């Protein structure tokens, strides 16, 4: 992946570049909003990581300018402004995702993967999801694996829906909290783990190959 990082804080920028470099991604750095916009308009990137408080031109203006030029490069906003209102502003300005500082690198990585993948294909209105022999009927709200019918509770259904849409990708706990629960706080204890383990118990029967995998230090991944 070729990425553009627009960030004025040198230590954060260095941390991200190094991390992405270790994963084998090339990452250009722009230290002001204007430099970032210029780079984004001249080069082709797979995704842009954008800070909000930037010198010369703030992040939201950069994003709006980019979108008004009809550039659909996926943008992940990475900001210390993490209130619901801030996130809404960012997403309305055309960001594909919003991550608050301080953040874990695994979280950033997982979200980048998701937005880059998302930009590949346009989302279609689907009524059925399938991964391997696992099927989810979105209208009847039922699941089945290898013709074995699976009864799901509301939360389990939403969880499976989200994980199947992001099959093969790492989804973090925070992503699940935001997408499935729509919570803007950490529900504490081990809520997500408990729901995942219940779902796992239903999906992965004794003799079947496990589909829900725990990714150490990052989150979960569903694949056949």
């Amino acid at each position, binding site marked *: 992946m070729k990425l553009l990082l627009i960030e004025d804080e040198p230590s954060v920028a260095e941390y991200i570049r190094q991390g992405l470099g270790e994963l084998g991604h090339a990452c250009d750095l722009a230290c002001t909003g204007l430099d970032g916009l210029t780079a984004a308009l001249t080069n082709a990137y797979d995704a842009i990581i954008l800070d909000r408080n930037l010198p010369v031109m703030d992040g939201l203006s950069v994003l709006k300018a980019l979108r008004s030029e009809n550039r659909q490069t996926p943008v992940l906003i990475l900001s210390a402004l993490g209130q619901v209102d801030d996130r809404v502003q960012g997403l309305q300005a055309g960001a594909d995702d919003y991550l608050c500082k301080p953040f874990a690198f695994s979280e950033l990585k997982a979200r980048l993967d998701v937005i880059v993948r998302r930009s590949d294909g346009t989302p279609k209105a689907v009524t059925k999801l399938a991964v391997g022999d696992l099927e989810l009927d979105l209208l009847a709200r039922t699941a089945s694996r290898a013709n074995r019918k699976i009864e799901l509770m509301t939360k389990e259904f939403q969880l499976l829906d989200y994980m199947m849409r992001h099959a093969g990708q790492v989804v973090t706990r925070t992503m699940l909290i935001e997408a499935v629960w729509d*919570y803007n*706080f*950490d*529900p504490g204890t081990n*809520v997500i783990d*408990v729901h995942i383990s*219940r779902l796992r118990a239903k999906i992965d029967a004794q003799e079947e190959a496990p589909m829900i995998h725990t990714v150490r230090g990052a989150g979960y991944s569903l694949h056949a």
Partner: protein
Amino acid sequence: MPELPQWRQSAALRASLLCAAVTLLATMLALSIHYQRTVVILQDEVRDSVNAEISLLLRTYARDGVTGLTDVVRSETRDKSLQDFVYAVADTQNRIIVGNITQWPTLRKSDSWISIAAPMPGISSDGTRWVEARALPVGKKYHLLVGRTATGLVTLRRGFWSDMIWIFLATGTTALVLGWVISRRGLRFISAYAQSTARFHAGDLTARVPISLRNDEFDHLGELINQATGETMRMTLTLRAATDSLAHDLKTPLTRLKSRIELAMLRDPATVEFSTVLAQTARDVDSLLAMIQAMLQVVRAEATPIASFAVVALDDIVRDAVETYQPVAEDKGQHFTSALQPCLVRGSRPLLTQAVANLIDNAIKYTPASGTIRVTLSVAKGLACIDVIDSGAGIAAADRERVLERFVRLDDARGQSENGANGVGLGLSLVSAVVRVHRGTLTLEDNAPGLVAQMRLPCAPSP
């Protein structure tokens, strides 16, 4: 009663002066129009009839000369009692040749209008009457004077100016006094407002506008201002408390962090497990970040504007929280039940969600395995009531009040400090803050054993 400004600078004086000036101008206009309408019309009427009489006499003079003129005048003035008109013919020395006035009046011009007092024996009480007359030269040797009784007109005209002065005085005084009295109420209020604002600005957050018993618009405004200052005071104090306790609460873990690092540096580098020290440090930093996050949430919950509230289905929110936490409780071997009644409230969905989640999370955390947790939502007397009942350790009676205060010392708020990484006290502080901005109440009671946390919120009026 607060002091009023110097009378000369007083806006009350200026207001009443302006008021008086405007009133006087209006009065003058009204009187002038009135004068035009009555005096001038009356006068024109009289003058027209006099002019008609004069032109008749002039025609006689032209035909018959001065003899003819004097003859006519003489015959017209013969009956002295029934006269509407006065006549006089005089020579160049103003000696009256014939007529029913005794003295030729002094004239400014040879042809002019004049008001004269003519003798009128037997008709008016003082034997004279006011006459509107015109004097004009006839030929080269004579003057003719014709007048018509116009007592009313002349009195009206003469009285106009004195009337004007009296009316001016009366309206002027009234306007001044009224303006003063009326504007003083407003200005007294402004002065009180200025004083309380100055005190507020100087740091006295309790300064308020005095409210009178009149219950008028000023009092209404004063109450609104006081509400606003009250809200500002509440927020300022919250922020102060937040910064104070944030600083205090951060010091403890930071000190622990520092001493661990210093200890590691003191030891022989060969024997120190740096990865262990770093892992511990990272954990401590995480809990610090979580603590800051939690405190920020409380502060922001407190600062939520009521204007952002919407009608939300409270049963949906509670059901969602129950669905989220029930598996967690069951995994712990706890018996979790719920009973929810549909109910609408005005509020912020994210805040209410978090408050309910915090209550249930706390209950699960502090209830042992095989304990029971029950969540109910009921409606009574316009109040939505959420009960979270557990059979856990409970909170000592002495601490129950304290944990609901803003920013209670986190660690020792409930049970042992090792229990909750984020601090339970903050969890309840947030619930308490959310309930407060929703104008509800939060009570903690003993369930012997366990805790009953009860959240009461006013229901939204049914549409």
